[in-house]
């Protein structure tokens, strides 16, 4: 049997207000109004429930609103907040369905056909959507129906309502006609005819309505019947996650800037987690005071081990900003996360328990923030004749490297001596007798040479800029140390590059 089509609608009431609450949750429960523009004549476009109870409504000016209620909080409409909330809503929708349409201004539609197979029922789907909405700081209304119109109406009249297939007409019959959002002229005409509900409009002959109202009337009639005038037009999920905020005043101090960055990161990470992803790289864009319009200062930070820990990401940002501070006070900040898939780890029943990959990635990210990108990793000796050459791989390595050297049984029998490298190799003074070192003097050590082993000549990479040609000696010196030194054959200078310990 062919499955009937089901569409879910996720709507956010008072979208500008909801976008503000997402950024400033402490304003919930207080009388708040959103104005379009700034200044005393800015028009109020959104009013909170508390402010409405105090007598405030849309259309007032900011001055009038404050005159009605002195403790009202007036906030201008912020494009960054709106964009952030809209993107969060889309990310949430994409976590439930791959077919998502952004209808704008806090309304999205998603394909919900077959959702009962995953969630058991449409009620559970709606509950899951609401719960995820709380995680991204949005209070949602969810409606499910056989078309976008029905789903939108269901979300308008209830916080969570699923209209069963075949019952659309009875559901819509008693709903007010205003919910279909007719144009002003059409609404006036309908009001003159005494049409107040959707059911009354549907009962009229459609051809007569079209004759009198034209194309807008025909579209209205179709919507009143629960038919969509346009198909669900899916949008692709975003490849990057962006949050921005404009600061109340230019900031030239690190701590307030990090406070703002932390809030941005928290919102971003909540959105990244919805998709089951982690942060692969960060980009911070700073709008500075005095810069030309459209110019920004950017910092890009690669996350060595993708993580979703806010603390670790903030530490990386702090290190980068302290390394290269902004050249002027910051007026606006934008953070972009390019996501990465968390690296899967195959567990082994017979191996000792390992930390979870996320926890390990967070630990590595914190170490990278403290030591720098080039200071943390899994050492891997290079295939080179240059003694001491190694590089740092990401930890843990993506592929298991072959275990070279001794196996576990041989480790017990042979106890090798370790070398403590000196980086970079330090210059030393060496006094020789017939080519053999007899006295060595360097920074922090020196003395008569008691025993010598060598020389061993090591040459390599002659085809490159960094070619080397050295003669190595192992020396036991009267100060008690045993050192590895070498003479650079090109410059004839002596260096110490390690201590046997």
């Amino acid at each position, binding site marked *: 049997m062919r499955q009937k089509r089901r569409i879910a609608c996720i709507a956010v009431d008072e979208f500008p207000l909801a976008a503000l609450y997402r950024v400033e949750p402490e304003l919930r429960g207080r009388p708040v109004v959103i104005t379009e523009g700034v200044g005393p004549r800015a028009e109020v476009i959104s009013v909170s429930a508390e402010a409405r109870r105090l007598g405030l409504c849309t259309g007032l000016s900011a001055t009038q609103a404050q005159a009605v209620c002195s403790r009202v909080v007036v906030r201008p409409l912020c494009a960054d907040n709106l964009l952030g909330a809209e993107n969060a809503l889309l990310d949430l929708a994409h976590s439930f369905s791959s077919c998502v349409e952004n209808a704008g201004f806090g309304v999205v539609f998603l394909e919900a056909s077959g959702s009962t197979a995953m969630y058991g029922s449409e009620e559970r789907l709606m509950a899951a959507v609401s719960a995820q909405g709380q995680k991204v700081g949005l209070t949602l209304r969810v409606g499910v129906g056989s078309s976008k119109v029905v789903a939108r109406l269901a979300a308008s009249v209830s916080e969570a309502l699923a209209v069963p297939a075949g019952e659309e007409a009875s559901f819509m019959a008693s709903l007010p006609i205003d919910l279909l959002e007719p144009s002003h002229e059409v609404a006036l005409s309908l009001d003159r005819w005494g049409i107040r509900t959707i059911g009354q409009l549907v009962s009229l002959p459609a051809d007569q309505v079209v004759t009198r109202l034209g194309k807008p009337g025909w579209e209205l009639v179709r919507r009143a019947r629960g038919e969509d005038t346009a198909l669900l037009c899916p949008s692709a999920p975003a490849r990057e996650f962006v949050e921005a905020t404009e600061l109340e005043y230019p900031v030239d101090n690190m701590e307030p800037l990090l406070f703002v960055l932390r809030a941005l990161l928290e919102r971003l990470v909540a959105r990244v987690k919805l998709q089951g992803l982690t942060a692969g790289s960060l980009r911070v864009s700073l709008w500075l005071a005095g810069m030309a319009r459209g110019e920004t200062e950017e910092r890009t930070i690669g996350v060595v081990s993708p993580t979703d820990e806010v603390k670790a990401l903030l530490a990386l940002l702090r290190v980068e900003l302290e390394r290269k501070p902004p050249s002027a006070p910051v007026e606006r900040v934008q953070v972009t996360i390019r996501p990465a898939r968390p690296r899967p780890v195959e567990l082994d029943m017979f191996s000792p328990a390992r930390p979870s990959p996320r926890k390990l990635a967070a630990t590595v990210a914190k170490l990278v923030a403290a030591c720098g990108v080039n200071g943390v990793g899994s050492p891997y000796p290079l295939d080179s004749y240059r003694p001491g050459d190694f590089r740092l791989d990401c930890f843990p390595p993506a592929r298991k*490297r072959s275990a070279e050297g001794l196996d576990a049984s041989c480790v017990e029998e042979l106890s090798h001596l370790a070398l403590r490298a000196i980086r970079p190799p330090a210059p030393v003074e060496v006094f020789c007798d017939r080519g053999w070192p007899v006295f060595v003097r360097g920074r922090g050590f020196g003395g008569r040479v008691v025993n010598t082993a060598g020389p061993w000549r090591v040459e390599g990479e002659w085809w490159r800029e960094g070619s080397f040609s050295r003669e190595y000696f192992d020396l036991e010196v009267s100060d008690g140390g045993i050192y590895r030194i070498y003479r650079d054959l090109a410059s004839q200078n002596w260096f110490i590059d390690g201590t046997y310990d």
Partner: protein
Amino acid sequence: MACAARLALTRVGKACGVSLGLSPLSPLRLGCGIKAVDALLRGGLVRGRINEITGAPSSGRTSLAWRFLASATRAGELGAVIDCGNNFDASSAEAIGIELSRLLLASPGNLRCGLHCTEEVLAGGGFALVVLDVGSTSMRGIASSAWLRLAKRAEHSASALLLLSSTPLAGPSAFLSLSLRRIETRWNSPVAKKHPCLATLFCGLVVEVRVRRSRVGPAGESTVVYFTSEGMPLIACEVPGVGGGGKGEAGWEGPKAAQGG
């Protein structure tokens, strides 16, 4: 989950009278594989505690610390080295037996940052052994309470924390403190003295490992360990006056220039 599965399989094996050859659960002690040292330490380093290895330069302390790391990583566990002085040498570490793919190396640059990194690694958990190699970094500004805080962190983790330094640092916070002293340096030189054209080889160190402080056993006990060095590659050359099979004299081989590229 792995532990529960292992226990379930062990019960199944016992019921059927079959040994399933499962690896043992992580022990409380972390041995180094040198029998004499493990016997001295009654099993090895203590997990969840601060252990300390001190000694003068070239006393073998780094070699012993890397042996503990080799033992842990070869058993499939993870290890971490916080290298404050940037002294880590990957080649000798690999030769000692450390499985480098299971080793996390961090080079903080100073001890204060090194202490912070050690705390983060212990807090993250999952490492059998964390080595804080103090090296010759300055101790200025490091309060003694830092070691107490580190000891508390180690207690809450299942990791053994090993401090590697030239002098004792942790004081009473250390559960186990070892001091190393070089007794003898071995050189392969008796034949070379007779024949100056022959090369001398540095063979290794004979080291005394002494328990300076221990909360589980008596202090003052010691043992002797020999650490061998891995010399440069050799080639054969004709040695005048030394015949093949001469009694008491080795057929000497001289040094070679290892050509790259």
